[in-house]
């Protein structure tokens, strides 16, 4: 925040005036101002704030899992007396077939979920962004070939393609992440391409080109940043789908392997005790539901702020 006159007085309106100044003195001030405006319209949507709250809670629980969880997520208690106990004061959500506290396992499972979501986003978004912007900016046969490949991946139902990949690579959480990432990038490429087609012919690109900027420089420095906001919306909206796919893979025994406390795999364990010990299957499922709901609400809210055209 250099160069900007900072009227950081005790008066909050001064701060707001600085943020909303029509003539920002620095890039930082302009960016903060935009962010503030976005936050104002975002926070007017109560459901979106709830979604943000759920996602922040997930992150906090994942960070402080060791502090929050009262028992070990992996090693259980006495198999004779503490197996499949119903929810009680000692075991808030009951215990599973290995006498492990379900609450502690769900708390630690948030780390697995967050790990999957973040890694998939980190792998799939750059691939989609690169394919889409290159395809849209260069056009011609590059565009045709890249979009054909994208269409082929889009043509596969997501879970089934992920299943086939995991079957080939072998079950495990890393392979599940790779498989989900491989099935996630095509829609991002489509969106990035559509955005690029609109940006490509604008005057400022022509100006940069006349200044002698190279194609990679134009794509990376000028096209990619403008595609980001609609892509962020899409990725956030997709996170619920990623969580559900990962849980589905875990449920089928193809994702995280025991004893890792993955929520989908926990539901699968509970399936064997469904009728008499329903909580074993029910509790982790609720966790999956709440977290994907959180991402859906957050994504909806972000879309209204960042991409008003797409909202209904």
């Amino acid at each position, binding site marked *: 925040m250099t160069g900007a006159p900072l009227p950081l007085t005790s008066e909050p309106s001064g701060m707001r005036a600085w943020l909303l100044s029509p003539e920002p003195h620095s890039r930082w001030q302009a960016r903060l101002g935009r962010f503030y405006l976005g936050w104002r319209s975002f926070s007017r949507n109560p459901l979106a704030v709830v979604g943000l709250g759920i996602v922040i809670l997930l992150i906090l629980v994942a960070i402080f899992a060791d502090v929050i969880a009262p028992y070990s997520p992996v090693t259980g208690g006495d198999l004779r007396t503490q197996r499949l106990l119903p929810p009680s004061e000692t075991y808030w959500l009951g215990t599973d077939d290995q006498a492990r506290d379900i609450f502690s396992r769900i708390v630690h499972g948030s780390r697995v979920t967050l790990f999957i979501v973040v890694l998939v986003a980190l792998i799939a978004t750059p691939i989609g962004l690169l394919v889409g912007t290159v395809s849209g900016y260069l056009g011609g046969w590059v565009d045709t070939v890249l979009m054909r490949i994208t269409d082929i991946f889009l043509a596969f139902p997501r879970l089934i393609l992920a*299943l086939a990949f995991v079957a080939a690579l072998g079950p495990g959480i890393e392979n599940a992440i790779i498989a989900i990432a491989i099935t996630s990038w095509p829609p991002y490429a489509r969106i990035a391409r559509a955005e690029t087609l609109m940006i490509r012919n604008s005057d400022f690109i022509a100006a940069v080109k006349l200044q002698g900027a190279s194609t990679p420089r134009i794509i990376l420095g000028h096209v990619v940043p403008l595609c980001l906001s609609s892509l962020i919306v899409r990725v956030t909206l997709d996170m619920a789908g990623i969580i559900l796919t990962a849980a589905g893979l875990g449920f089928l025994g193809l994702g995280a392997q025991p004893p890792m406390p993955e929520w989908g795999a926990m*539901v699968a364990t509970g399936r064997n005790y469904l009728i008499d010990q329903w909580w074993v299957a029910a509790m982790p499922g609720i966790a999956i539901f709440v977290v994907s709901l959180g991402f859906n609400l957050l994504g909806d809210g972000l879309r209204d702020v960042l991409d008003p055209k797409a909202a209904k």
Partner: protein
Amino acid sequence: MVSAVMNRGGGHASALRSSLKNVAQFVMVLMTTLLGLAAVTFFIGRVVPIDPVIAIVGDRAPAQVYERVRQELGLDLPLIQQFWIYLKKAVTGDFGNSVLTTNPVMTDIANTFPATLELATLGTLIGVVLGVPLGILAAVKRGSFIDQFVRVLGLAGYSIPIFWLGLMGLLVFYAKLGWVAGPGRLDVTYSYLYTPVTNIVLLDTAMQGQWDAFWDAVSHIILPACLLGYFSLAYISRMTRSFMLNELAQEYVIAARVKGLSEMRVIWRHALRNAAVPLITVIALSYANLLEGSVLTETIFAWPGLGQYITNSLQNADMNAVLGGTLVIGTAFVLLNLVSDLLYRLLDPRTR
């Protein structure tokens, strides 16, 4: 009206030519997509860490035997040639034999696909019958209780894990309340009462007048079908709402109201008819999605369909069956997408 007819008469030859060109384009897209699907499954089959030769001859076989089987399987050929052989076989429906059932994979798929089709069709029907009116109501009474209800239904549908909801459904309606039959397609006692013709149990039993068996089949299918139907409903009602909102804001709706048409007529005859065109695409898409959703649903309900076949094969590392099933579902997915696209062009005069 008259001028429109005349226009169409005048441009007949060119319209025909452009539609022929469209068909050619469609065939091209279809071919390259299917080729791509085959390439992906072929590639997946090649990266499998299991050596198919060792799977057949065992790891203590002498080197000559190993080499002979390797040549019989065509694994010594260059990759591109192997892919060509794979393609030729795939076109004739030859995906090799399943290790698990020892049948040709195609026979297994032909046996299991009707069950999946039955379930997905019933699910889509439930989704359309409930979802379209709900979506229309939500659009007409925007911001009302029903609108909020549809919104919540939709959000939940996008967030609930399908396998969990299925388990909870079994727990409540089968185990606790006893309203529906449990997993499976039909009780064993009924399974000899009819001869499978179409392999669609509801049709077979009804056509042969075996009503006891029919009602048993209904009691088995109703829960998984409602489950799939719910996910279809969540999607269809949300899309119907947004299409209807779009149409209701058009000027022709105002014109119809100014003419003094009843609100019912404006909504159901004028707006819905225009919203129906994109809606067909959505319904076809949701049908395709149910084919996918059936993988988890069938596993939970022990439904002997293609989805369960794929997951069973997966758990036994039966790659021929997995890849064959994947290719068949992928093809069905592509075809449904194309059909919906064609229908869209056929029904919407603006795209001609």
